[in-house]
């Protein structure tokens, strides 16, 4: 590692590294969403993470939701966490607070039932957040190494150019980070159907190969159960017109963003990877669920590679209505030279590889620089853009509801 690969972050009590200082206001269930908004309103750095957890989910979905919410609170980018509940929440606010508090960060739990009434909960919550805002403003970034970084990688709005420019550039960043002892998480199990052969040969541990194959097969079965054939429908007519010929060619394009590193592990949505290296998070390709999953897995940053077309021409993020999750700053990469005029919505323009103006190593070096800068506090494009709406984040739901 060279000196220039250092980053500046906030060292947390558990040894992890925050690259942002979010005061997270976390409802245990959707009934406390409004309470979270009222507590966070007007407090600098406070973010109310509204989500869809109801009382109607069952069994494993509730377990995964509890894991996810606890993971969000444990994310190093959360400096302090206010957990809110009604008191009758299916995912217990007290349990969440306990799981988050083991990181050593400031945690407060308030339920309407324990406090006595809604207005008192708002008052207590706001006062606590204001004190935490003051404390967080005194924290200073310190020198850290890239081993402290956990990076999510995602592609979307993909076209033929994604596989040629953005995704290979992301892949080189992934390989460099993994080689230096960092952590990388890729996901979108649905996109791996047909790409099994590309991934299995990269997992030296047979147990990891087994779990990866089981995750992909279970995903395919869930899709088939809806009457859709995930193999026969890919590539789509639009993909074929764009130049993609086979299912494995399309899948390869997405897999390229994971570089060529060995795959060290597989973990379910809501959980976190065990140790550094490259890991698969088992989750379908639904953006809000994915972003929550990456943040819950402890990722501090995400690289999002976009091909081109309409998905490149919106300032926010495809698949969400407002853009980023403050817990997970996102670095956007654009590939298609035809959409170069929309490059202002992106952090890195990779289309130069296709125009002949830059080599793949040059573009990936630029992306590496963006990752280090974002990890050291420079706002990404999405962070500097003010979105007018509020996102209610969708939790993963696999089973039936009551």
């Amino acid at each position, binding site marked *: 590692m060279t000196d220039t690969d250092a980053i500046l972050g906030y060292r947390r009590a558990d040894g992890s590294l925050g690259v942002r200082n979010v005061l997270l206001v976390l409802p245990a269930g959707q009934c406390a969403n409004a309470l979270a908004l009222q507590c966070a309103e007007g407090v600098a750095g406070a973010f109310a993470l509204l989500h869809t957890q109801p009382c109607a989910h069952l069994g494993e979905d509730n377990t995964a939701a509890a894991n996810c919410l606890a993971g969000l609170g444990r994310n190093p980018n959360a400096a302090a966490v206010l957990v809110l509940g009604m008191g009758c929440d299916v995912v217990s606010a007290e349990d969440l607070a306990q799981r988050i508090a083991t990181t050593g960060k400031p945690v407060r739990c308030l339920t309407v039932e324990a406090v006595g009434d809604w207005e008192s909960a708002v008052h207590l919550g706001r006062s606590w957040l204001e004190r935490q805002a003051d404390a967080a403003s005194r924290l200073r970034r310190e020198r850290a190494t890239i081993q402290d970084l956990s990076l999510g990688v995602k592609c979307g709005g993909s076209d033929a150019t994604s596989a040629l420019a953005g995704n290979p550039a992301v892949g080189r960043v992934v390989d460099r980070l993994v080689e230096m002892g960092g952590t990388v998480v890729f996901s979108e199990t649905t996109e791996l159907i047909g790409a099994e052969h*590309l991934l299995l040969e990269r997992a030296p541990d047979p147990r990891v190969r087994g779990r990866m194959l089981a995750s992909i097969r279970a995903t395919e079965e869930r899709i088939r159960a809806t009457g859709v054939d995930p*193999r026969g429908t890919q590539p789509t007519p639009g993909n074929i017109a764009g*130049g993609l010929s086979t299912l494995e060619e399309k899948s390869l394009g997405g897999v390229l963003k994971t570089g060529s590193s060995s795959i060290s592990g597989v973990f379910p949505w809501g959980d976190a990877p065990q140790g550094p290296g490259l890991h698969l998070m088992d989750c379908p390709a639904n953006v809000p669920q994915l972003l929550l999953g990456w943040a819950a897995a402890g990722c501090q940053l995400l690289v999002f590679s976009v091909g081109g077309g309409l998905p490149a021409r919106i300032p926010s993020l495809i698949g969400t209505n407002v853009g980023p999750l403050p817990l997970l700053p996102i670095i956007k990469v654009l590939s298609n030279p035809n959409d170069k005029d929309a490059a202002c919505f992106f952090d890195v323009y990779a289309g130069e590889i296709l125009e002949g103006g830059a080599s793949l190593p040059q573009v990936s070096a630029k992306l590496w620089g963006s990752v280090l800068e974002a990890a050291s506090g420079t706002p990404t494009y999405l962070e500097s853009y003010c979105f007018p709406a509020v996102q209610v984040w969708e939790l993963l739901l696999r089973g039936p509801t009551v």
Partner: protein
Amino acid sequence: MGRDVVRGLVMCHGDAVAVLMGEVRAGEEVALVDTNQQALGTVVARDRVDAFHKLAVRHIDAEGSITKAGSVIGKASQAIAPGSHVHVHNLTSARV
């Protein structure tokens, strides 16, 4: 006025195909480059091929595996001559 020679990007050395950076007509020369923008020679297109579609950079036997970016993306359903368009008419999935 002649137009610029279209480049064909060879993602990994040894790939059977290049991806065209622009549309080419039959008989037109394509300049092959690698991802470092280093020249890898030329190939003459045998077909009219759209931008971002694939062109064979060498002879591919019938039933032979076709590699792109170092990975197998399917097999040739017929013998493919250098400079031919490689797409659904001569490349089939080995996974479906």
